[in-house]
C-alpha cells in the first residue's frame, strides 16, 4: 500500500511515464496483423468463450430474461455440449437474486454492477449499500464505477477512498473497477486511473460501462494491460483486465487475446485474469466454433437470441 495522502497520490500518479498516443496506435495496428488460424483459432475461441462476462444491463431487464441468459451462460450452445460455459453473468443488483438461483452450483460467476452504475453520481453510503446488497444476494463479483468527476478534477484521494471502501464491502467478492475510459479522454489518464485503482485494491480494471461511447478499444486495453503487467512486476500482485462494450466479433476477440498474450504475457490468458464484457459476441464465437467443427456456417436461427 503506497502513501495515500493526497499529495503523495498525486506525485505517485504523475511519476508514471507518459503514454505516446501515436506509438500506442502503431503497436495496436501491428498486433492486429497477427494471424490466428486453425488449431490456434480453435483454442482461442474456446478461451474467449470462457472469458466472456455475458451481460444484460437494461432498464427493461426482467427475471425471465435474466434466467434465460443464465441458461445461456451455463450452456452457450444447446446443440454442442462441448462448448464451454462463460466466465460470468453480469446483471444489475436487483437481478442478482434471480441470477443466483439460476446459476446455483454451475461454477459460472455472478457479477453485479454496483455503486450507482453507470454514472456513479450518488453518495458513498448509497454506493456501499448497493454493493453490500448485491454481495449479500449472491454476487461473487462486483463491477463498480469510479467517480470520473473527482478524477478529472484531480481529487485522486476521493476516487481512491471510494474504491477501498467498496473493496472492503465486497468481502470475498472480486472487485472490478470501471474506469469509463471514454470519459477520461487521454491515455495518460487511463494509465493513472489504472494505477490508482490497482493501488486501491482493484482485482480487475475494466474499460467501460458500455453506456458511453467510445467503450472498449484496443489501444485503451493496451495501456491497461501494460498497467497490470507493470503493477504485477512492482508489487507481485496480479490483477485482471476487462474490456467491455463494442466487442462483437470473433475477430475482435482474437485481437484482444493476441494483445493479452504479447503485452501482458501468457500468465493473463486465463478467465481469472482477463474477461470480455459482451453480449452479442458470444453468438459469433459459437458460430465460428461450429464452423471449425463442421466446415460450414449455420444460420443465425441456430443460435439463441436472448
Amino acid at each position, binding site marked *: 500500500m503506497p502513501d495515500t495522502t493526497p499529495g503523495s497520490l498525486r506525485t505517485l500518479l504523475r511519476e508514471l*511515464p*507518459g*503514454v*505516446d498516443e*501515436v*506509438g*500506442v496506435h*502503431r*503497436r495496436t495496428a501491428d498486433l492486429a*496483423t*497477427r*494471424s*490466428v*488460424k*486453425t*488449431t*490456434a*483459432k480453435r*483454442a*482461442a475461441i474456446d*478461451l474467449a468463450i470462457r472469458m466472456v462476462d455475458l451481460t444484460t444491463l437494461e432498464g427493461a431487464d426482467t427475471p425471465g430474461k435474466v434466467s434465460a441468459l443464465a441458461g445461456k451462460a451455463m450452456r452457450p450452445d444447446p446443440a454442442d455440449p462441448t462448448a464451454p460455459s462463460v466466465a460470468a453473468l453480469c446483471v444489475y443488483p436487483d437481478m442478482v437474486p434471480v441470477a443466483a438461483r439460476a446459476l446455483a452450483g454451475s461454477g459460472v460467476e455472478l457479477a453485479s454492477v454496483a455503486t450507482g452504475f453507470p454514472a456513479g453520481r450518488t453518495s458513498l453510503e448509497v454506493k456501499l449499500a448497493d454493493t453490500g446488497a448485491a454481495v449479500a444476494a449472491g454476487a461473487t463479483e462486483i463491477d463498480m464505477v469510479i467517480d470520473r468527476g473527482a478524477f478529472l478534477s484531480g481529487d485522486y484521494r476521493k476516487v481512491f477512498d471510494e474504491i477501498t471502501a467498496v473493496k472492503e464491502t465486497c468481502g470475498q467478492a472480486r472487485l472490478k473497477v470501471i474506469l469509463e475510459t471514454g470519459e477520461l479522454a487521454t491515455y495518460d489518464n487511463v494509465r493513472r486511473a489504472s494505477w490508482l485503482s490497482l493501488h486501491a485494491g482493484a482485482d480487475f480494471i475494466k474499460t467501460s460501462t458500455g453506456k458511453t461511447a467510445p467503450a472498449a478499444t484496443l489501444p485503451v486495453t493496451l495501456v491497461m494491460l*501494460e498497467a497490470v503487467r507493470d503493477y504485477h512486476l512492482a508489487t507481485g500482485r496480479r490483477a485482471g483486465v476487462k474490456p467491455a462494450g463494442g466487442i462483437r466479433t470473433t475477430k475482435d476477440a482474437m485481437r484482444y*487475446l493476441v494483445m493479452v*498474450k*504479447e503485452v501482458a504475457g*501468457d500468465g493473463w*490468458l*486465463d478467465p481469472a485474469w482477463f474477461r470480455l464484457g459482451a453480449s452479442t459476441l458470444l453468438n459469433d464465437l459459437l458460430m465460428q466454433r461450429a464452423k471449425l467443427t463442421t466446415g460450414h456456417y449455420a444460420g443465425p436461427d441456430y443460435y439463441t437470441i436472448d
Partner: protein
Amino acid sequence: MFEYAPAPESRSIVSIRPSYDLFIDGEFVEAKSDERIVTINPADEEPLAEVAAAGEADVDRAFTAARRAFERVWSPLPGAERGKYLFRIARIIQERARELAVLESLDNGKPIKETRDVDVPLAAAHFIYHAGWADKLAHAGFGPSPRPVGVAAQVIPWNFPLLMLAWKIAPALATGNTVVLKPAETTPLTALAFAEICQEAELPPGVVNILTGAGGTGRAVVAHPDADKVAFTGSTEVGREIARAVAGTGRRLTLELGGKGANIVYDDAAMDQAVEGIVSGIFFNQGHVCCAGSRLLVQESIAEELLAKLRTRISRLRLGDPLDKNTDIGAINSAAQLDRIRELAAAGEAEGASGWSPACPIPERGYWFPPTVFTGVTQAHRIAREEIFGPVLSVLTFRTPEEAVAKANNTPYGLSAGVWTEKGSRMLWTASRLRAGVVWSNTFNMFDPASPFGGYKESGYGREGGRHGLEAYLD
C-alpha cells in the same frame, strides 16, 4: 492458453523461372557475358533461380538503349504523359502486391509481414508520389523549366530490393531521365519482376534497363562513360570507390551509405512506446537497415528499468520462417553478412561488452542470428562505432542532454537518429543539435515518399524522396 499455429503465406502465387536474362531495351535478352549467378533463399539455402551477370558489352548495350530512349522518347514526352506511366506502374505493383511480397521474402529472407505491409506498399507509394510531380516540375523550385540530366546509372542494395529500386527509378523517370539499374547480387528477383511490370505497363523500350550481376557489373555500370548521373545505395566502402571512379568526370553523384544511428531515450520518455521504437529501430528487417537505431543511448537514471522492459519485449519476438505471417525476425540475407555480424558480435564480447539474446530456437538450415543486446558498451568499442547491419543493439548510457548529443554525434556516420522525450523543448533542443539526415521524434523507421532521406558525413550525400530528391535528377 493458446499458441499461434503456423500461418505460412502460400508461395504458389509466384512462379520463379529457373533462369533469367538481362532486361535491355524493353526485352529480356541473353547476356553476352556467359557468367551466371545463383540466387538462393537465405531461409533454407535452396537455390531459387539463376541470373545473368552482365559484362561490359552488356552494360554498353544497356546504355545505348537508355541513351536512345532518353533522346527520342522519354525526355521529349510531356510530364503529364510520363506521369501516366508511373501511375500505371504503381497500379500494377499494387495489383501484384502479394506476389511481389512473397518473392521479396523468398529472395531476401525478410518476414512477409514487412514485405506485405512496408516494402511493397511503400514502393507503390513512391511511384504514385513521383507520378504527381512529373507535370509540376516547373513549380518544384528548380527554375521555370528544369531539364532532365540524361541517363542515370543506379546501383541498389539487398536490404530493401524493390523499395530501393522504387526510390531510384521513380524520381529518375518522373523527371525525364532514363535508367540503367543494377540490383544486388543476392536479391535480383523483384527487380526482374519489375522489368516484367515495365513491359506490362508498356513503358517505352530502353527507359528502364535492368542488369543483374555482382560487383564487377556494378563497377562497369557506375563507371560507364555514357552515364550522366550515378546513384548508389550501399556500403560506405563501395561508396568511396564509386566516388573515386566518378571524381573529375563531371557526372552527378548521390550516395546513400552506412549509418550508426543513435536512439536517444530521455528519462521522461513514454517508456513503453520507446521500447517499441527501440525494437523496431534495430530489429526491423533483421537490422539490415542503413538508418537502423543501432546505438541505444539511454539516460542512466532509467537504464535498468528500460532494459528490463526491452528484454521482456525482445523475448516475445518470433524468429523463423519468413513466409509465416507471425514472424518478426527473418533470415540474414547471406552467409557473408552472417559472418560479418558474427565477427562483430564476437568483437563486442572480446572487448568487454556483454551480449544477451532471448532463448529462441534457431532453424537448422539457412542464415540466422538471434536478436542481441549488448550492454556495458563504451564509445571505444567496435560495436559502438562500426555498422553491424544485423539485429545487434549496442546500449550506452548518458547523464545529461549535452552528453547524449555529444555521444550521438561521435561517429563518422550521420544518417539517422531518434529522440524520445515527452518534453517538447528538449525534443527541439536535441534534434537541432544532432548531425543526422533524419531525426525521428518519438518514433523510428518511419518512411514516406514525401519526406527527403539522406545522410551527413560518411553516410553519403544527396537526398532521396520529397521535393529535395528531385534535384539530383534535374539540371
